[in-house]
């Protein structure tokens, strides 16, 4: 792969990498016909993020013919390439990215003001493709908001807060801090913010529901959305099925897929608004299968007690009867990986 990013797009790329660094430790790169994808997944497999930059995003975009190539690198080392985010726009004129499969080298060359040339040669590992399978258009509920609205909302919660519960009705959304069951209830402050549908660019709620997910990744995406000024769309069904956060424009497509708490009893019960939240139908048989399969395939990952791992998919081979799970009621991440179970 050989591509060039110029002008303001260098900062967009840098912000995307910083957003991805909120998710996981590794950056998966995959140059494809329809653009360059950058992905990351967290260690408990409960959060996945993908940025697709279309060829038009680049001033040059060339990929080798033939079979697809992909790799993963330590995300910290790529972040280091774009360390001076604040001055990036003023100093970097052009960024050249070269992926050399033979030398196993990923090279970022920044052409800066005053003729300064910064070359970063990063070593990488081959990787399986990291692919989430989700169908956000089939979601029951869709909300779209300017990043400012969500940023203001998040500001009401302390930076240390890990999870937030979002509840929707026909015309309102409630954000609440999620308090762990283990926490002493008499110690924790409960914060609740109520937004009216009017504040959203788009508000389509087909079923009242309530989902709990990690705030860290949302914060990460907000940094990106705020810097690009693009609205964020949120797609979700109900407890246990992932929430998808999307930011798109003509040259980029970004999706953050976050697991939600599956056990709704863990959510605070005292609030009447939560009562009667319809749970989406679950196919118990399929769920059981999946869980046991996951445990069989991979003992290294220990998902948190309440978040369901999203990445069942990345560990089972293509052709497995389970690989085509999007048809099931439960959306999961899947993979078109060939044979690399330990790589994930």
């Amino acid at each position: 792969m050989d591509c060039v990013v110029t002008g303001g797009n260098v900062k967009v790329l840098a912000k995307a990498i910083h957003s991805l660094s909120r998710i996981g430790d590794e950056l998966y790169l995959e140059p494809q016909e329809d653009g360059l994808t950058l992905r990351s997944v967290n260690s408990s497999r409960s959060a996945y993020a993908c940025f697709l930059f279309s060829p038009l995003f680049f001033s040059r975009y060339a990929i080798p013919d033939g079979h697809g190539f992909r790799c993963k690198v330590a995300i910290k080392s790529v972040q280091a390439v774009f360390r001076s985010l604040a001055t990036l726009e003023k100093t970097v004129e052009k960024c050249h990215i070269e992926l050399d499969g033979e030398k196993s080298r990923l090279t970022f060359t920044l052409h800066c003001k005053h003729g300064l040339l910064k070359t970063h040669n990063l070593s990488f590992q081959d990787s399986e493709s990291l692919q989430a399978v989700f169908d956000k258009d089939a979601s029951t509920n869709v909300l779209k908001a300017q990043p400012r609205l969500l940023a203001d909302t998040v500001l009401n919660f302390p930076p240390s807060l890990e999870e937030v519960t979002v509840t929707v009705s026909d015309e309102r959304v409630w954000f609440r801090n999620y308090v762990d069951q283990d926490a002493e209830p008499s110690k924790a402050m409960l914060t609740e913010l109520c937004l009216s549908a009017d504040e959203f660019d788009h508000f389509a709620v087909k079923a009242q529901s309530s989902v709990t997910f990690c705030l860290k990744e949302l914060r990460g995406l907000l940094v990106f959305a705020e810097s690009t000024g693009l609205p964020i769309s949120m797609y979700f069904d109900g407890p246990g099925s992932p929430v998808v956060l999307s930011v798109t424009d003509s040259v980029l497509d970004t999706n953050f897929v976050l697991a939600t708490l599956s056990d709704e009893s863990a959510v605070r019960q005292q609030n009447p608004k939560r009562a009667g939240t319809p749970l989406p139908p679950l196919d118990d048989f399929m769920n059981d299968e999946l869980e046991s399969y996951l445990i069989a395939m991979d003992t290294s990952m220990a998902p948190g007690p309440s978040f369901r791992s999203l990445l069942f998919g990345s560990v089972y081979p293509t052709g497995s009867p389970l690989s085509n799970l999007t048809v099931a009621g439960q959306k999961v991440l899947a993979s078109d990986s060939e044979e690399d179970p330990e790589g994930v």
Partner: protein
Amino acid sequence: MKFRSKIIDIGCLNNFTRVVTTISKLTKTCVLRLTPDNLYFVLSGKVSNGGVAMWCELAQANFFEEFQLEGVSVEANEICLELAPDNLSRAMKTAQNAKAVKIKLTKKHCPCLTIAAELPTMSSVSRVVTHDIPVDVIPRRLWNDFKEPSMPDFDVSIYMPPLKIMKNVVDRMKNLSNFLVIEANMNGEMNLKIETDLVSVTTHFKDLGNPPWGGDGSQTGAASQRDLETMVQVRVDIRKLQQFLMGQQFNPSKAMCNIVQNTILHLILLYEDVSLQYFIPAVA
């Protein structure tokens, strides 16, 4: 027991937030005493908090548009709550642009002080944020622990130098030493001193002035009997003084310091009609 109140004025909101934030910087937990006329934030000088005591008093009428209180009984028309001031401070900070803020005592999963703020939006409907802060209701038999501390019979009373300068000096001194000697006389002079194996540092303030305590009887005590020039000193844990100087967000109109020789340092900040008193015990 009932309590509900409302703040509308943005200036009152800011001032109240400043007071609460100051308290939160000084202590992790404290007691909030509510009476029909006043609010008090109280920390009693127990060993568990290093013997430091705090007393902050606000007249409710200066902050609240509405203030309804029904205490535990007619003759004890008060409510005493233990809470984490940091929670209250965080809640108030999210309400900085609010059109109105309601503060009330509620029964949720546990007794709570509920802060509800109506935030302005671009749309026609307001945004509402509520914070439920868990509180412990203090039974009446323990109220005696949270009465206003009596003014110590100080040996010297002096106005403090600009707190920002004092903070800078104390910050540096803290890098050099764990203890600080503060000394003052009735001639408007105050010294801050540290001494270690490596260095000795003394900062001299003068022309600070001494408050006229004529009316309240203290003047007839030890202070008046001393020679104007004689220095009275107290040695304190420098971190406690630093915490006070860092935490205060009052921009006080008056700041005073009373010293009881080798016993206690008593600091008083006044801002309009809010008063904050802070007591730091001497160390040997």
